[in-house]
């Protein structure tokens, strides 16, 4: 068993709490670690990888402590967020270095196989310093896969990838998960996470804000009061009409410049606004969601 278990894990730097009392039990399959920048995702991954000691609590992989236990790395592959590699090496030399360091039985074959997995065979003989961001990302993944680890930890793996590379990487991780491996990756993009993650753990400001499959998380994130700014030919009339509808919680005139509306149900609201406007001859000039930023979505989750 290679379950990744975090029990009451906290980590602080001086007075700053980066991770606050997190409990997780991660099993095989893909788990997405979702949260805005600075939420403590990297800190948490570093602790999972045994690089960083938790201030309190414990991290175990397959029952063995992750910390001060270098033997654990035979089962773990880490793709760090840093872009720095030994970039005076070629891609092939770098992956081979990782294979040699892991004492893989047939390093040359394993290297070739890992490079093939990430589709980098054609660029393997070039120096890493000439690689694009996405290529560096892929060669990093190859280096973490070369010893066939049970647990793969990836910190922001889709950063800097174009859509085709992203899809390829997602396919790779999904295939890996189907073969029973445990994969944890961090991201601040909900769409990325829900495309491949079976399980989603949301981290906001160091706290474990939500946990569940992506449908649950998606519902939590969309079924919340949404705010919009509407500019129309007759704001006052539109406000009256909208308030008559149960999905609208409130409407407030903002001087002469527009109408602030808070609505519960995104789907219904999207239908009634154009219908009511057309029926009553009100022209809509602009409709903008005002709190769509990820931070506000996350802060909503934290407050529930």
């Amino acid at each position: 068993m290679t379950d990744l278990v975090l029990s009451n894990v906290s980590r602080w730097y001086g007075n700053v709490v980066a991770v606050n009392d997190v409990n997780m039990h991660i099993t095989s399959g893909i788990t997405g670690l979702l949260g805005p920048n600075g939420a403590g995702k990297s800190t948490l991954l570093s602790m999972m990888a045994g690089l960083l000691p938790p201030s309190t609590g414990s991290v175990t992989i397959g029952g063995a402590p992750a910390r001060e236990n270098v033997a654990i790395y035979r089962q773990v592959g880490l793709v760090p967020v840093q872009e720095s590699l030994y970039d005076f090496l070629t891609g092939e030399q770098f992956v081979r270095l990782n294979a040699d360091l892991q004492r893989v039985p047939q390093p040359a074959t394993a290297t070739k196989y890992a490079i093939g997995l990430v589709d980098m065979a054609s660029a393997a003989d070039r120096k890493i310093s000439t690689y694009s961001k996405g290529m560096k990302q892929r060669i990093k993944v190859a280096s973490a896969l070369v010893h066939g680890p049970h647990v793969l930890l990836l910190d922001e793996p889709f950063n800097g990838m174009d859509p085709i590379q992203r899809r390829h990487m997602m396919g790779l991780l999904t295939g890996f998960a189907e073969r029973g491996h445990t994969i944890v990756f961090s991201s601040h993009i909900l769409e990325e996470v829900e495309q491949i993650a079976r399980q989603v753990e949301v981290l906001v400001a160091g706290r474990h804000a939500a946990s569940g499959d992506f449908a649950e998380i998606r519902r939590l994130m969309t079924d919340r009061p949404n705010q919009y700014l509407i500019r129309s030919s007759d704001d006052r009339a539109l406000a009256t009409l909208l308030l008559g509808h149960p999905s609208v919680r409130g409407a407030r005139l903002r001087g002469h410049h527009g109408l602030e509306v808070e609505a519960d149900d995104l789907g219904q609201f999207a239908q009634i606004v154009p219908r009511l406007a057309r029926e009553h001859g009100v022209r809509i000039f602009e409709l903008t969601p005002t709190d769509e930023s990820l931070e506000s979505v996350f802060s909503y989750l934290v407050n529930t």
Partner: protein
Amino acid sequence: MNTPILRLGLRSLFGRARVWLLIALPLVLIGLSVLLRSVSTGMTDADAQSFLQVFGIGIVVPVVTLLATTTLINSEFDDGSIIYLLTKPISRVAIIGSKATIVLGAALIGGAVPMGIAALVLVGSGGGLALAALVAGVVAAAAYVGIFIALATVMKRSILGCLLYWLIWESTISSLISPVKWLSARSWGDSLVAAISSIVGAGKPPVPALYAVLAALVALVAGVLLVGRRLAAMTSSDE
């Protein structure tokens, strides 16, 4: 010791343009020796010996060691690439021991051997100065490797810290305050030059040769063990 890390260290130091930085100083040392030999008429063997002590032990060996330490330790911590070594089933002491071995090798090739060559250029094989310079270079290099890797790790990977140590402790205080000679890599090197060469009138060794060798060994081993322990507690995403 770990072969892949040794190989990586060799590539990192000698496979890149910065190898010229490592080569420059020893070339200056040998070049200056050729110049002194051909221009200066009144130079005695004792003068040659003190030139090797001041310029070789005092400057070339520590600077070459510092350059190699910076490349293999400081910069890998700063850019985070060391994480690829730390997430492998290899003991921390083996990681740092392998790196220290390469740094020591660089210090021998770029410091100790050029000192021997410079001595040959200056006085030929007379007075055993070439052997003295070579051995002293090796001992000073070993001590500097231990001290610099320890300083580089303890002082937040600061190159400035290493430089200040070298300028203030080794180059200034150790010549002003006599007891410091017992704790100075430079005086250990000086002692070996003086102890092995048989040139008359070149001054006595500051500390006994056996003590100097042992002290340098202790500095090297203690440095590796200290950094190995530090690595065990290393955090990678602190910054």
